[in-house]
């Protein structure tokens, strides 16, 4: 489906040269009493890069076949994540490798924002903050701060490997910012 660049609104998903973008902003420009243009800011949905482009306001652009869904992870089985749409009960199976880096935040029964392009998942966003258990970490040695170390590596229940403060031990629950992979706080 095509729309005129003049009708492009913030948040719309479009496709240029088979790459999906989301429109961040569009401004109408009318230089010299001549032809009108639209200066558009776009974020590439596959690479997350932001680009700008100048179109003629009468140009047609293709609406991208992009769908955003909130899906609940039911379970992981043999390298595949099984998601379910809470409203339709429809289930979707996605190979873990398709989820890339985001797969390290997958935990049963959590809801994730999944972006489909032409029927394939191109991006997945975990909830911004998650409370996860530390499943593996070397015990912190008291007094180690002399050497300047305050953080140590750890593995969380989802498989994510992050840095945590040395006073956090295995089996403790912590709050993590999934956008940066950073420890936020200890959950008592």
């Amino acid at each position: 489906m095509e729309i005129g660049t003049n009708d492009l609104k913030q948040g719309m998903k479009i496709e240029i040269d088979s790459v999906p973008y989301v429109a961040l902003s569009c401004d109408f420009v009318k230089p010299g009493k001549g032809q009108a243009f639209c200066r558009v800011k776009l974020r590439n949905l596959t690479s997350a890069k932001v680009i700008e482009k100048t179109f003629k306001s009468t140009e047609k652009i293709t609406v991208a076949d992009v769908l955003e869904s909130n899906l609940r992870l039911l379970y992981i089985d043999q390298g595949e994540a099984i998601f379910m749409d809470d409203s339709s009960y429809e289930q979707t199976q996605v190979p873990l490798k398709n989820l890339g880096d985001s797969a390290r935040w997958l935990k049963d029964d959590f809801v994730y924002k999944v972006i489909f392009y032409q029927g394939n998942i191109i991006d997945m966003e975990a909830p911004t903050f998650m409370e996860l258990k530390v499943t593996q970490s070397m015990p912190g040695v008291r007094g180690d701060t002399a050497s300047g170390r305050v953080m140590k590596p750890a593995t969380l229940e989802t498989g994510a490997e992050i840095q945590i403060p040395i006073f956090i031990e295995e089996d403790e629950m912590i709050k993590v910012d999934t956008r940066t992979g950073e420890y936020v706080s200890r959950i008592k």
Partner: protein
Amino acid sequence: MSAVSNKLIFRSEALSKVRSFFYDRGLIEVDCPALEDHASVDLYIEPIETECGYLHTSPEYGMKKLLALGAPDIFQLSHVFRREEKGTRHRPEFTMLEWYRKTLTLDELIQECLDLIALFVPNIAYERLSWKEAFMRYLGIDPFKISKEELLPYLESLTLSQAVLDSSLDTLLDLAFSELIEPKFPPGMVIQGFPARSAALAKIGKDSAGNLVALRFEIYVKGCEVANGYDELGASSGSGNELKERFKQTLINREKENLRTFTLDEQLFAALDKMPECVGVAMGFDRLLMLAIDATDIQDVLPL
């Protein structure tokens, strides 16, 4: 006092200031109809059509007919309508201030514009450049001599779509002017010497290098285009016929671009044959208000 009241009071006082400015200078206010039998003829402005006529895109044609009938110096402050124009500085319906002076030269009109603008945006010093000088100073190119191939590298930062890259040299020059040159202007700038193709209903002359230029000026305040003025084609320039020829050419150009064409208003041409010599200017009233309060979106100064 609510934010809405403040906005309305500001706008009401601005309307009053503008009217006083012109009454003090001896002009009278007119209100030509917005609904016309014929569409405005312009290559890049789309009129809005209704079941009973076209909404005017500016009061120009009506005001010129009045001048031909013997009206004194006149101004009009009214809503004008343009299809599909919406952005931070554009709306399909906006308020245009337009006036015509039989007794001023183009330079005197420019000064009158600056005096009016000063009521809203004071303490600005204005520089004057020709369109060509602006290109030379800010991009280092001569717009009358450069070819499309030579111009394209300068436009790379604008990341143009293929359709834009395929447009004419004139379109690309206009884009370069508005996107690469205007943002570099000092707070006050007056540009004259636009290429003859943009003359609309203005006289055409020659610059010192012999290039055909429109006797036209534009005023930019803080990088925003606020006024567009002309030394109008009047009776002595055989203007009725000249204008008819220009309009016919515009309609041909519109057809080439798959735009709608219209019937011509013979009454307008007849009027122009009787119109005295004059200079005229159109100013975006809403933009003037935006500049007065440093608004970033035209919605900030509109009542609804």
